[in-house]
């Protein structure tokens, strides 16, 4: 499911899209396994899935820093939901 490699002007767009989608799949399914949504794992299996996820997170940090100039975690949501409050009744 990868696109043809682009010319150098679109390289960061290409890399961001391809690497982030692949990382998202690793991340999604690793957490699905870890959360027991596909059945319970043994402690050894949980440890190994944890190693996969930890290394996927390392790649994500490198990617964020290299492509978006954002060092460290990128988990904070950028959104309008940071400015909501309960309606007064």
């Amino acid at each position, binding site marked *: *499911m990868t696109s043809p490699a682009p010319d150098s002007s679109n390289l960061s767009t290409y890399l*961001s*899209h391809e690497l982030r989608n692949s990382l998202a*799949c690793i991340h999604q399914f690793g957490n699905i396994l870890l959360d027991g949504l596909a059945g319970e794992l043994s402690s050894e299996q949980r440890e190994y899935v944890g190693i996969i996820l930890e290394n996927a997170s390392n790649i994500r940090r490198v990617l964020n820093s290299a*492509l*978006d100039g954002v060092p460290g975690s990128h988990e904070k949501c950028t959104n309008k939901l940071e400015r*909501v409050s*309960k309606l007064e009744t």
Partner: protein
Amino acid sequence: MDKTKILVVDDNPTIRKGLSIRLRANGYEVLFAEDAISATAALVTERPDLVLLDLGLPAGDGFVVMERLHKNDRLSNIPVIVLTGRELSGNRDRALQAGATAFFQKPVEDGALLFAIRKALDVSRGELRFDE
């Protein structure tokens, strides 16, 4: 009571599958579209409660989907959460200006995404409001 319907728009079938497992495990009904045309059709026929929208799509992109959604009075209040592999630069601000409620880059933490979904639904149902 009907389940909350979430339309997942992404051209990557593995991403769609992963999101559907996570969302269904949290009690949501999940619908799919894989391009801008089928996303627009699903918005009209299914009228989901929320859209999880990728930006890089065949047959148009996520911005086209948002534009069509916000031009339709019947659909314009459906919250859109963008979940994309694109770079921040040039996409985040544009998506928020185009009407997205939230912007996440892939991969996203499940907890953060589910929290944003709940909040966006609360806002659209009038239980929360945006501060000025």
